[in-house]
């Protein structure tokens, strides 16, 4: 009698576990496994300091992935984020002019540029009906050209310390953690903001509906154009934030931001976002970015040549999407 009860309890537990495993997006266990391997290989990753270092370095990718997810969910692409980062770096190097007091005006101007580019992208996608792939591709080339033209081919000067503070600054003497990176605070703010508007507000629900079926959601009263435009604006603004953070870590370099759009799309896709819209979640996209960065760290730790990063990234992308589509088909 008793053994039967125990047995049924155990089977119930197992089914619960199975349901739980099915419900948890695959990105979390993947990230956990990779991060544990990384931590095993490099003791630095076992401390708060090391984990914060890792999070600090992956925060621009995470912010980009979250922004990209907004656009992907409504059924579009935003390829212009990479060159927008270049524009932010080049532009703010000129606007700052080595003068710390110009920080706020610089930030205002580059955020204005971000909003403007997002609006242009959104306008041309929604009103001119240009496919988002083509629109943002054109914007990629135009923004890169603008960045080059503005600075005459290369970044000028250096970033002032108060500008770099966002990327590399720390808040000292925090209880428990020790030092808390400012870029992580930026990431958290972005995360909670987007979590709220995507998962808790009408905007997010309508965006998902539009990605699934734009016509149906239009007929049921969603403002398709406004939401599409807003998603492009969000993506551009997040790209500007990521650009400021990148400027903080690495200073200015000619190649900064190149390929960032591909990384953002990969991260969002690893996080379970479906291309052409209809499915996505903010925490998963963020962890997709972390997984990607952890994978890069792993490649570094294993001592593989840097080019293999690309090959592994390619394999992960195909694998992640194959897994997702396989799971969907089984349903």
């Amino acid at each position, binding site marked *: 009698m008793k053994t039967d009860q125990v047995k049924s309890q155990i089977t119930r537990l197992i089914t619960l576990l199975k349901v739980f495993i099915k419900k948890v997006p695959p990105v979390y266990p993947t990230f956990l496994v990779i991060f544990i391997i990384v931590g095993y290989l490099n003791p630095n990753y076992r401390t708060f300091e090391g984990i914060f270092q890792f999070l600090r370095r992956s925060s621009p990718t995470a912010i980009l992935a979250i922004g990209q997810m907004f656009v992907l969910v409504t059924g579009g*692409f935003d*390829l212009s984020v990479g060159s927008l980062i270049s524009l932010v770096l080049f532009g703010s190097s000129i606007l700052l002019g080595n003068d710390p007091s110009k920080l706020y005006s610089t930030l205002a101007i580059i955020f204005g540029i971000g909003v403007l580019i997002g609006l242009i992208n959104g306008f041309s996608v929604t009103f001119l009906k240009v*496919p988002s*792939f*083509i629109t943002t*591709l*054109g914007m*990629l*080339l135009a923004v*890169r*050209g*603008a960045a*080059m*033209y503005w600075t*005459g*081919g290369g970044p000028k000067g250096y970033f002032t310390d108060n500008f770099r503070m966002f990327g590399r600054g720390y808040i000292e003497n925090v209880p428990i953690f020790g030092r808390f990176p400012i870029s992580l605070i930026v990431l958290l703010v972005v995360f909670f903001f987007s979590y709220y508007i995507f998962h808790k507000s009408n905007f997010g629900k309508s965006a998902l509906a539009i990605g699934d079926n734009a016509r149906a959601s239009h007929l049921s009263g969603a403002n398709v154009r406004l939401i599409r435009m807003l998603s492009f604006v969000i993506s551009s603004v997040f790209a500007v934030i990521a650009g400021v953070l990148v400027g903080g870590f690495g200073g200015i370099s000619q190649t900064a931001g190149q390929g960032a759009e*591909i990384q953002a*799309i*990969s991260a969002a*896709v690893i996080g379970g976002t479906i*291309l*052409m819209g209809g499915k996505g979640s903010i925490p998963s996209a963020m962890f997709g970015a972390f997984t990607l960065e952890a994978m890069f760290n792993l490649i570094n730790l294993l001592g593989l*040549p840097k*080019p*293999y*990063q*690309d*090959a*592994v*990234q*390619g*394999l992960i*992308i*195909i694998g992640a*999407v*194959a897994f997702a*589509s*396989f799971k969907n*088909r089984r349903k």
Partner: protein
Amino acid sequence: MLKANNLSQNNHTWLRNSIRSIPPVFYFLIIVFALFATLDQIFADGQMLTNPNIMMNIIIRGVALGIVAIGQTFVLIGASIDLSVVYVISVTSVLSSYFMQGDPANVPIAVIIVFIAGAIVGLINGLIITKLKINAFITTLGTSLILKGIINASFQNFAGEVPRSFEVLGYGRIGPIPISVIILLSITFIGWFILTRTRFGAHLYAVGGNVEVARLSGLRTDRILIIAHVICSITAVLTGLFVVSRIRAGAPWIGPDGVYDLESIATTVIGGTALSGGRGGVLGTLAGVLIFGVLGYSVQPIGSQPLSQECHPWDDCHYRGCQLHHPFKTRNCIKWRYP
């Protein structure tokens, strides 16, 4: 009398139909060309119309993009996309010059190897897209990244060399017409023929229009898409061979330097092929490529933005504004002049 009248009417409709079948992008091409030729006369030295070498250079520069764009047209008509062409071009250029090593005897084997490699990449793309049902954008992005990783890990810069006789592909002329232009035109013709005059072409349009309907009508949709991807990769191989015959050696940066993935998609879409598939054609793509060529040439002297429009390393000396900042340019000018 009646018969003759009928015939002339038929002739008339034939003419009207053939005018209608010209993609509208050709009118756009004429407008762009006229606009920039005028601007060139006013703001620059006006060499675009007077110097035949410049016109020829615009066309030759379009050859590399044009060949791969025609393959891209096939894929886009099938409602798919191919971003991996860039690194197929790089792989082709590196492998071909690595296997040739400057010896004309090695040319056939090198060409066979690169064609097989290209066909395999296309096959893999097609198989992943159709059998695993993965979005084409992601698949080809993934294969592109994989190829990028492999090629960058195995080759640093120029590998091997192309024999002199192979340069005929890039620099040779038959009479006044460069061989490369003949190649582009013949590939365009083949593409046009396949798309409009063969069963495969009709099937491809059907698959691009609606996969499910095509499948229910009894088409082997998977096989058709796979063939389209193989065709696209093979055109990328041809572009790679052409570029390597211009530069004389292959390097991993050749593909990404020309932005062949995004530009081939952009020219195809400008040429009237729908990204959603099922519509478009090769002739429009050719016009799109020429528009890109004219724009690419004109932006430099008129807008004086030498850096916003990058130069190809194999641009000719007649191509203004390039020698100032391109590291390969000086070598170009000394070594690779027109015959």
